[in-house]
Structures are given as C-alpha cells and as structure tokens.
C-alpha cells in the first residue's frame, strides 16, 4: 500500500532539494557588494523618513490572522472534494457541520467589527 505513495515522496524530495540548492548556491557564489546607498530602504526614490521597519498598527495583524484562519478552512475542503463521491451523504453532513462551526466564528468576527478598518 505504501508503494503508491512513493512518487509523491520522490516529488516532494526533488522539489525541496532543488529549491534549497538554488538558494544556497546563489547565496554562496553570488557576488555581494552591499553599499550603504543600495541597502537603504527604498521609499520611491526619496530619502526615507524614519527607520525602514516601523511600528505597524495592530489591525494589519488582525486581518492577517483572520485570513489564515479561513484559508486553513479551504485547505480542508481539498481532500474532501477529491473523495466526495465515495463519502456519500455522511461526508456531506460532516463537512456541513465543519462549515457551520466556522461560519459562527466568521459572523462573530464580523459583528465585533474585526473586518471594519477604523
């Protein structure tokens, strides 16, 4: 049974090796000449005001977390959608319950005004 997962394992191994290889060789062999003007933060051509990494309001973080949350939800749809036929009614109800739970969370976030910006 494990046999038919071999191609996926080979695919994952090759892709990670290739990616790591490209980055490492680029890092090792590539010429690095950091001049102060080149490494200065880019602010559309002007002298940057204040440091490059500045304090960001918390709302950006809030939006990011909400996005990740519902993105993971979509990730769970994928394997379900593949075997959707075999699961039949049970699978449908199960996924429906999963969606409703997350929907409650979504409505709560909406009412608390997490999606509004100001």
């Amino acid at each position, binding site marked *: 049974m494990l046999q038919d997962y071999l191609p996926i394992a080979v695919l994952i191994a090759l892709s990670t090796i290739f990616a790591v290889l490209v980055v490492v060789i680029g890092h090792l*062999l590539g010429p690095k000449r950091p001049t102060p003007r080149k490494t200065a933060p880019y602010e559309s*051509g002007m002298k940057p005001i204040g440091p490059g990494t500045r304090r960001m309001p918390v709302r950006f973080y809030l939006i990011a977390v909400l996005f990740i949350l519902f993105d993971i939800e979509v990730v769970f749809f994928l394997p379900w959608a593949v075997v959707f036929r075999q699961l039949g009614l049970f699978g449908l109800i199960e996924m429906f319950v999963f969606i409703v739970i997350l929907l409650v969370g979504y409505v709560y976030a909406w009412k608390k005004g997490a999606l509004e910006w100001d």
Partner: protein
Amino acid sequence: MGLEQKLGNMGIVTTTLENVVNWSRANAMWPMLFGLACCAIEMMGAQASNYDLSRFGMELMRPSPRQSDLMIVAGRVSRKMAPVLRRLYDQMPAPKWVVSMGDCASCGGVYNNYAIVQGVDEIVPVDVYVAGCPPRPEALIHGIMTLHEKVKAEKLKEWA
C-alpha cells in the same frame, strides 16, 4: 559569477556558460517603471499592444528598483529629480543597464536652461542613447535590440 574567478578561463566550458548567462540576461530584462515626461507616453505606447515590448522579454515594468535590471530614463531630468534618479540607480541590483530615451535625457535636448540636467550621463552611466523627441516606439525597440547585442558581448568578469 564567483565560479569564474576561482576557475579562471576554461575555454569551451566558460564561454558557453557566458553565452548562456548573457543570453538569459538579455532576453529576460525587466525595465523599471520610470516614466518622466513625454517619452514615457511613447514608452507606454511601446509597451502596449501595437508595438508590444513583451516580445523582447520585457513583459513586466517593475515599479521597484529591486526587481528591475534596466532603467529606461524616459523624459527630461530636472535638477530636483537628479538625486532621486541617482538613488534609484544605486538601489538596483548588480547586472543593471541604462537606456537614455529621448533627446532630453541624452543631451538636454530642446531645453538648454537652468532647470534640466544636460544629459543623464552626468548622473548615471548610460549604455544606449535613443535619439528622438519623443523617439518612436520602433526607435526605442531598436535601442533595446542594440542593448541586447551589447549584453550578449559582455564578459562575465564585468559583473563578477
């Protein structure tokens, strides 16, 4: 690249590598979205559907200098813009080239007065000058083709 410095010139191996690297640099050169004045409209015309710069590997006009290899100075550079242009040139990664498009960028053109830098080569080293006021899109493409020839003839040591 660092490899050539260590191995020195190895005849067939390095020249073919050099050709491959120059070929890839020439044919995937991303210009920086840097339109100043009237030539920028002709540059947009060259980028758009009729003259289509993407046939030469210039599909994207990257706004940020970090991801662009070619700076097309399209338009007249005023005294107030000169330090900005120099800073943008410095912030571009190493294999970078400059095409000075139009007479105003190449030599001050119609404006010989206090406000215009008389030729961008006072600020940044220019590879190809494209004449015209504004140059037709075909003239810009011809300038870019000459730049491709120049890049294909470059040695790797220049950017190593």
